[in-house]
């Protein structure tokens, strides 16, 4: 083809925007129309390459795009109108930002000449979104649109990923506009050059320290998932024979059923993981950020540990916990180089020390600290439901969650062996995330089993999306762990407020079964432990249907272990009556 001689196609700004998304490889755009984006919606209507998914509330669009990104590593795309459309998207943008999820959000804006005049549906989205985006930009000239789209994806997906907002004034998308269309193949920014590899000298140092460790721990986070480094992590851990713990965001980064996995760490981490961290002499932190839900009191954090911290974002290093050997770089090549250095080294891990360390860890494991207990009441424990679903789905489902006790039960009892399967709002803790997230995954992986673990509080924050599910035939399974309370709030009120349940009881709940049916789905209610397995099996037998599984669970159950506030990593409540 003689591209050079060819005249570029002349297009309107709106048409260029959609074409650019297509050329970027985008299949779905999640959104909701409105005045400022009508030209763009008209451009969508006139092509059939990029499909628009119409949600019922803009927040759901952001979570769908976000979940697509969490399941694939690629940026999801959102399109909303100005004003309320944009502000409704804010929670979802902040959710993605806190968990470093790549996303491109196109927000409509009033005509350029009206900006600043308090025009109808005007809001300063550049200002509102600034603290919760990796970057944002406003279109000043329609001809710039293809380059801006390219830039947005590049920034969103490279380095430490994050959401990027493109604010598009309506006059930038006028249908009568004609601009030469050309989609750039690459983009470079002089002020943004994410690091491509780690410092070899530091990696060598890290290898030496790791090989000299007596009580080592590998602590890995969401960076392993988004950095596509779970294979490297597994190779490294198995080469060394060291124990691995994952953060909430990092679950699935290391296979949960592997014997070297000691479970999640932190506030609701396992007894063994938190103890092993506290007693470790070397901690290798990979794509994790020493979040306050992990460290507990930073002053008492792992007193004997030499800390090696690998992260792509220099601001994460020594932010809360000082790092002895900082390595700035993407986890994938850094771990690969670490493996090489370790293999090349004459030193081998201290087998004797390691055997003693594993013996200690196994003793902690056998104590089963914080495990739930069953009784003969017939009441269902929420943890049992998660375990039953894990068995039923052979541990291979995509599991999304909302926020609260059910989220922790899912994290603790669904054992993820693969990355990209556990999809939850870790950093921001956004209730209402679970259902739209499940929808985003199911749409893109129609053959996969997708389960949304939720509660009767969270699910009602985006329940209107049952309608979207009907429209697009999204056969997700909603597992509603219904205890009639905002469970995590209630748990804190039990523990810190002498059980004064201020506004944590949910009165007047709908009949979820009928509600699901009203939207054209299937509803199943499970009340007794004896019917749990059979009814779950029935629910999962409806392959392409959305099934709302309302499981009435023990309202008194708490999430354990739970770290004692302001304590050490291994100061934990293990039940209502036991603490370490």
């Amino acid at each position, binding site marked *: 083809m003689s591209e050079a001689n060819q005249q570029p196609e002349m297009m309107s700004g709106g048409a260029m925007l959609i074409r650019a998304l297509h050329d970027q490889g985008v299949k779905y755009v999640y959104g909701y129309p409105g005045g400022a984006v009508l030209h763009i919606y008209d451009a969508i209507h006139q092509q059939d390459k990029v499909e628009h998914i119409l949600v019922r509330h803009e927040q759901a669009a952001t979570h769908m795009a976000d979940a697509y990104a969490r399941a694939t590593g690629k940026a999801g795309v959102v399109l909303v109108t100005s004003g309320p459309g944009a502000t409704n998207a804010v929670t979802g943008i902040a959710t993605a930002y806190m968990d470093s999820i790549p996303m491109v959000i196109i927000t409509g804006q009033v005509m350029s000449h009206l900006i600043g005049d308090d025009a109808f549906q005007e809001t300063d989205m550049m*200002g509102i979104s600034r603290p919760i985006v990796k970057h944002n930009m406003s279109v000043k000239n329609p001809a710039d649109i293809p380059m801006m789209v390219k830039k947005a994806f590049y920034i969103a997906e490279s380095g430490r990923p994050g959401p990027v907002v493109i604010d598009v004034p309506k006059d930038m998308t006028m249908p009568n506009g004609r601009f030469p269309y050309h989609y750039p193949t690459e983009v470079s920014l002089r002020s*943004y050059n994410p690091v491509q590899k780690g410092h070899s000298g530091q990696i060598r140092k890290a290898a030496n320290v790791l090989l000299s460790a007596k009580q080592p721990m590998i602590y890995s986070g969401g960076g392993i998932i988004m950095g596509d480094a779970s294979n490297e992590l597994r190779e490294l851990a198995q080469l060394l024979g060291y124990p691995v713990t994952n953060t909430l965001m990092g679950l699935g980064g290391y296979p949960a059923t592997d014997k070297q996995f000691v479970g999640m760490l932190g506030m609701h981490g396992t007894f063994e993981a938190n103890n092993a961290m506290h007693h470790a002499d070397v901690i290798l932190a990979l794509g994790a950020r020493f979040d306050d839900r992990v460290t507990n009191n930073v002053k008492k954090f792992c007193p004997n540990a030499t800390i090696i911290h690998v992260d792509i974002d220099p*601001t994460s290093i020594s932010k809360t916990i000082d790092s002895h050997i900082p390595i700035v770089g993407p986890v994938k090549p850094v771990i690969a180089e670490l493996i090489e250095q370790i293999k090349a080294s004459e030193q081998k891990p201290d087998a004797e020390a390691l055997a003693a360390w594993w013996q200690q860890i196994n003793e902690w494991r056998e104590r089963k600290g914080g495990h739930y207990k069953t009784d003969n009441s017939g009441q269902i424990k929420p943890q049992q439901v998660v375990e039953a679903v894990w068995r039923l789905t052979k541990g291979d489902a995509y599991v999304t969650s909302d926020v609260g006790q059910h989220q922790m039960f899912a994290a603790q009892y669904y054992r993820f062996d693969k990355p990209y399967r556990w999809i939850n709002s870790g950093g921001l803790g956004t209730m209402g995330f679970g259902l739209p997230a499940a929808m985003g995954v199911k749409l893109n992986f129609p053959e996969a089993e997708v389960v949304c673990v939720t509660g009767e509080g969270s699910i009602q924050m985006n329940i209107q999306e049952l309608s979207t599910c009907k429209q697009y035939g999204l056969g997700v399974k909603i597992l509603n762990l219904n205890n009639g309370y905002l469970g995590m709030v209630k748990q804190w009120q039990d523990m810190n407020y002498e059980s004064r349940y201020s506004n944590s009881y949910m009165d007047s709940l709908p009949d979820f079964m009928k509600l699901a049916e009203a939207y054209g789905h299937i509803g199943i209610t499970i009340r007794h432990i004896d019917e749990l397995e059979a009814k779950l099996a029935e629910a999962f037998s409806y392959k392409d249907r959305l099934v709302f599984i309302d499981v009435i669970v023990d309202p008194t159950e708490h999430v354990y272990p739970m770290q004692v506030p302001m304590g050490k990593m291994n100061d934990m409540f293990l039940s209502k009556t036991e603490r370490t």
Partner: protein
Amino acid sequence: MRHLLSVLMENEPGALARVVGLFAQRGYNIESLTVAPTEDKTLSRMTLVTKGEDKVIEQITKQLNKLIEVVKVIDLTEGAHVERELMLIKVKAPTPVREEIKRTADIFRGQIIDVTPTSYTIQLTGTSDKLDAFIEALSGMQILEVARTGVSGVSRGEKLLLV
């Protein structure tokens, strides 16, 4: 404790808001801030005076670098540097003290750039300490207005802040 940060950034609308927003969101101090385009019209140079523990300054520097539009950040106070601030100060100058004010301004190498029968406006350039000292020296006078630019600075000698 006191640090002078020089920030080279894209001369684009919103870039300044990002820097100011960063300081506000993360609770960092700004003592003074000055910004203007450089000889290269596509770049702005900002000089920030901030105070904090080394750990905080390290975070500030990293966070600034993380902003997409920031091209480069240096901490001028890490090495030899020169810094200047400009002040315009308007004082009441009735006949009995007119001479004294002028003498004081001369001692500080200030220039009187606007004169009325009852007031002087003096321009003074120097380090922030010198400007403070001048205000102190005029403490017996009636100061009407003070406008300071905030500190600007460069490294001494060969060291440059370039793209």
